[in-house]
C-alpha cells in the first residue's frame, strides 16, 4: 500500500474517532459561547431578538456599584475557601493515609460522603443545623458569642458560614486527590529519610510537601475556578442578602437574565466572569509551578 493511501486511511480513522466529541463540543459549548459573546453586545431580552448596542452593556456594567460588590464578595469567598479547604484536605489526607486497609476505606468514604449529596440537600441540612430557633449548632454559637445568631441573615456571618458549608460539601474530593498523590510517594523515601535522621516534621517538609506539590497545585487551581463560580449555595442559603453582603457575580447574572429579562446585560456579566476566571487561574497555575520548581 502506498504511503499516501495509508495516510488517508489514518486520517479517516482519526476523524471518525474525534468526530463525536467535536460535534458535541461544538453544539453544546462552542455555539453557546459564541451566542453569549454575541448577546453581550445587544440589548436583547433572554429570549428573542435585540439591537446591537456595541460596548454599552460593558460600560454600564463597569459603572454598576452592585457589580463591584459582587466581585468583592467573590474574592472574599475565594479567600475563605480555597486555601483553607486545601489545608484541611491535606491534614485529613495525611491522617487517613496512616490508617490501614478497611478502616482507611471506611474513613475515606465518610469524608467523601458529603460530596455525593446534591447542593439542595446540603443547604437544607445546614439551614436546619443553623436554624436560629431550633438549630443544633446554635448552642455552640451561643457558647462562643454569648447569644444565638441568625447566621444567614447576619452580614458578618453570612459569607464565612457559606464558606464552611461549601468546604464541608466539597472537601472529600480534594482529600481523594491528595491521598492519591500521597500514595504515589514511595515508602522507601521515608525510610531513607528516617535513616538520614529526619524527624516526622522534617520528613513532611522535605519529602512529602515537595513531592506532593504538583497535586496540591492542582487542587488549589481547581478550587479557585470552582469557588469563583459560587452561586447555588448563596442562592439557596441567603439569596444574596442581607444588604447584598453575599451577592456574588453569578447571582447578579442570574437576576439580570432570569428575573429582569436582560439577556444582553447578563451575557456581559458572564463574559467578564469568564475572562476573569481564565486569567486568574492561568496566573495562579503559573505562579504555583514556579513555586514548585524552586
Amino acid at each position, binding site marked *: 500500500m502506498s504511503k499516501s493511501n495509508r495516510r488517508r486511511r489514518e486520517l479517516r480513522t482519526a476523524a471518525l474517532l474525534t468526530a463525536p466529541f467535536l460535534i458535541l463540543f461544538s453544539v453544546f459549548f462552542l455555539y453557546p459561547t459564541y451566542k453569549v459573546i454575541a448577546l453581550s453586545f445587544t440589548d436583547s431580552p433572554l429570549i428573542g431578538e435585540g439591537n446591537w448596542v456595541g460596548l454599552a452593556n460593558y460600560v454600564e456594567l463597569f459603572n454598576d456599584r452592585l457589580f463591584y460588590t459582587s466581585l468583592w464578595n467573590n474574592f472574599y469567598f475565594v479567600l475563605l475557601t480555597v486555601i483553607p479547604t486545601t489545608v484541611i484536605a491535606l491534614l485529613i489526607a495525611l491522617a487517613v493515609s496512616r490508617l490501614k486497609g478497611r478502616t482507611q476505606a471506611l474513613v475515606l468514604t465518610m469524608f467523601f460522603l458529603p460530596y455525593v449529596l446534591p447542593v439542595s440537600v446540603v443547604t437544607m441540612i445546614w439551614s436546619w443545623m443553623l436554624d436560629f430557633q431550633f438549630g443544633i449548632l446554635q448552642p455552640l454559637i451561643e457558647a462562643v458569642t454569648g447569644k444565638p445568631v441568625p447566621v444567614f441573615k447576619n452580614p458578618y456571618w453570612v459569607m464565612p458560614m457559606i464558606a464552611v458549608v461549601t468546604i464541608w460539601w466539597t472537601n472529600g474530593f480534594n482529600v481523594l486527590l491528595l491521598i492519591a498523590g500521597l500514595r504515589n510517594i*514511595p515508602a*522507601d*523515601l521515608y*525510610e*531513607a*529519610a*528516617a*535513616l*538520614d*535522621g*529526619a524527624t516526622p516534621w*522534617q520528613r513532611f517538609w*522535605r*519529602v512529602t510537601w*515537595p*513531592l506532593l506539590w504538583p497535586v496540591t497545585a492542582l487542587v488549589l487551581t481547581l478550587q479557585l475556578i470552582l469557588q469563583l463560580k459560587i452561586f447555588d449555595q448563596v442562592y439557596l442559603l441567603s439569596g444574596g442578602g442581607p444588604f447584598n453582603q453575599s451577592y456574588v457575580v453569578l447571582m447578579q447574572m442570574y437576576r439580570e437574565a432570569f428575573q429582569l429579562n436582560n439577556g444582553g446585560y447578563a451575557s456581559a456579566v458572564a463574559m467578564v466572569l469568564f475572562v476573569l476566571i481564565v486569567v486568574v487561574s492561568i496566573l495562579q497555575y503559573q505562579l504555583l509551578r514556579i513555586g514548585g520548581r524552586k
Partner: protein
Amino acid sequence: MQDTGVHLREVRKSFGAAEVIRGVDMDVRRGEFAVFVGPSGCGKSTLLRMIAGLEETTDGKIVIGDRDVTDEDPVDRGVAMVFQSYALYPHLSVYENMAFSLRLAKRPRAEIDEKVREAAGILQLIEHLDKKPGQLSGGQRQRVAIGRAIVRAPDVFLFDEPLSNLDAELRVQMRLELARLHQKLGATMIYVTHDQVEAMTLADRIFVLQGGHVQQSGAPLDLYDDPSNRFVAGFIGSPSMNFFDAVVEAQTGQGVTVRLTGQPDLPLDIVLADPPAPGTEIVLGIRPEHLAVTDGEGLRVTVDVAEELGGVSYQHGTLEGGDAVIFQQIGARHEMHGTVQTVVPEPGRAFAFDRSGTRIR
C-alpha cells in the same frame, strides 16, 4: 577505634502470625564484609531492615559495637542503608541528595561541601552534582545512593541487593568498585544478594539463610568445600550440585561403599569419619566440576543440552535411571550434544547427606 561489629542474639520477627525470622544468632566482626544469601522470601531483607531499625524486632537482641540498639531509632544506630530501588529524593539534586543527612544534622556549610565533594570524588560523580536523579543512568544513581551512605560516615553499611537493577556488565564493574570501597573505608558492611558470584567474590563471610534460620556461615570457600547440609551444598556453587539417591553397601576401613539407586554397576568409596550402617539410604552430592569423563566404568549420561561458554561448558543430561545430571568440561569444544558419556566422580569429592539433608561426615 571502637568495635563496630554487628551481633544478633536469638533474633526473631513475626508479621502477624507468620514467623519470618526464627531465632538468628550471628556475629559480623568489625570491618568485615558479610553477605546474606538465600532463596527468595527467606527473610534476608527483613533481617537487614531489622538491623537498620526499619522493622521492629519481635524478640531477641541486636548489638552494634557495644551498644544494644534493639529499641533505638534508625538514625541513632550508626548505620546507613543502600536500597535496591536506590530511594533517591527525586526533587533534589545529586549534591542535595548526598548532603541531606548533614543538612538535617545542621552541620556547617563548609563541612557539608567538603564531605559531599569527597564522596563524589570517590564515586566519580563530580560532574553530575547538579543533576536530578531522573537525569542519571542506573549505575550513576546507584553510586549516588552509595554516596549518600558514605557521607554519613556510618559504622555499618547495609546494602539490599544494590546491583540487581543493573545490567550484567555494570554489575561486574560496580562489584569491583564496592570491593575497593570496602578496602578504602574499612567499615563493616552487610550485603544482601541473590547472586552467587557477588556473594562469593565480595564476602569475607557468607551467611546462608533459609526458613528463617542461618543454615551455615563462614568464608565463601569454606562453605563451598565443606557445606554442613544439603541446602547449603545446593545453594553455593553454580551450576548447583548434583544429588543422587544412594544406599550404603558396606563399611570399609575409612568410610563406606555406596551404590547409586538405579546404577548397580558402579560402587563408590566415600571417606567418612562416622560411617552409617549398611543398608542406610543416603543422598550423594557431587559438584559438576567434580565429574570427569572417562573411558572406563562409570555413570552413563545422555547429554541433551550443552551450554558452551567458551572456556568451560556445562553438559546437561540424564542418567539411565532418569536422574538429571550436570557435568563440567574445560577447554576445547566437545560437541557432546546428543551423545552418551561416561563420567566418574573425582575420588574424595563426593558429599554424603542423610535423607533429611544433614551432612554425614
